[in-house]
């Protein structure tokens, strides 16, 4: 095989995301970007093929996430960061700057993915533009 097989929950989540018109962003337990769908490409201003494999340090900063007053948001204050680090669902409004240079206001809801109660396999964020 060209790469190890992913966990079944991630396989299903990726397929689910690929069929949705809502932007979806999927990461593994380390925060590495596994997938974002076409709807997310429009909001992030970047095709997935250019973002695949992005580490958490990159995606948590490259879109310049900030609160509604413009203050930068660290990973632990991003909904997907909360889902990754604290492994609980989270939601908030924030501002980003897409890779196309366009500033956008978005709402993000993120939640952890557990294949079993003790098996954390990643996290997913859904978001939408104001």
């Amino acid at each position: 095989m060209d790469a190890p097989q992913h966990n079944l929950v991630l396989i299903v989540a990726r397929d689910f995301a690929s069929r949705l018109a809502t932007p979806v962003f999927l990461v593994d337990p380390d925060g590495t970007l596994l997938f974002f769908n076409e709807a997310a490409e429009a909001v992030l201003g970047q095709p997935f093929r250019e973002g695949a494999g992005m580490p958490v340090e990159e995606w948590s900063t490259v879109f310049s996430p900030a609160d509604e007053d413009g203050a930068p948001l660290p990973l632990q204050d991003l909904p997907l960061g909360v889902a990754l680090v604290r492994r609980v669902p989270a939601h908030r409004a924030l501002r980003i700057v897409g890779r196309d240079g366009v500033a956008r206001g978005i709402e993000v809801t993120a939640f952890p993915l557990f294949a079993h109660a003790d098996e954390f396999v990643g996290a997913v964020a859904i978001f939408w533009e104001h």
Partner: protein
Amino acid sequence: MRATIWGCRGSIATPGPATLRYGGNTSCVEVRSAAGDVLILDAGTGLRPLGVELMRDLPARIDVLLTHLHVDHLEGLGFFAPLWASDVELHIWGPRSTVRPLSHRIEHYFSPPLFPVGLGEGTARLEFHDAPEGEWMIGGVRVTSQPILHPGATVGYRLEEQGRSLAYVTDHEPALASDLATTPFGWVSGAALAFGADVLIHDAQYTAEEYGTKVGWGHSSVDQVVTFATRAKADQLLLFHHDPSHDDDAMDAIVAHARETAGGALGRCAAATEGVTLDIGPSSWR
């Protein structure tokens, strides 16, 4: 390692003159390791005649590996003669649930009003195990299990001994979450279990036409399975979990279609047939 097919019918037992050649019992495959370990894949109605055979020279330990708990994979257990014998350890492995232990879920079926007696009334020493997601050893056989795409908790198994491998991936619909021809194979359910297997036993319940009206039911079409097996670089593909509506003549046509579709991509392509034994590798058959 040798594998004997005791049941390869899907969904419901289908006895009668129309299924005499391929068989009508539901899923059950006996695997014997070179060292004599007895592993049984699934407990469909084929488990009953296998139990009769095992009673002739009862092993001290039998391991039953359940892919999931749908009735056609479980209903033979109450009629498995070794369950009612003494001096045998019966280890039952199955998919881990997010909610209840394996024993509770199985006992739900083997209790009134669905069944007259409980499994606990059997005289065998019975032990239930959640199948680990990963590798473990049963005697001389390295067993790997992983969740696969089918409604409810379901796993597939890969058995390896002396460098040879058998992948048992039935009740599986990988096409539900992947384009089998183009999706990177690491994003395809069951890929790791099947990859490079000497023998791949795989669900092939439907024709392509039938699949069109049964998407999401948890099974695959013959065409999908040929694509899956080819990408997995499996050597031999054994079509399994035959639809109850497919009589022997229909199965002949399905096999011919599968071989034509596969071209030369697979070393061998056949339909599982009750009573047939496959030699997976060098084995001192006991």
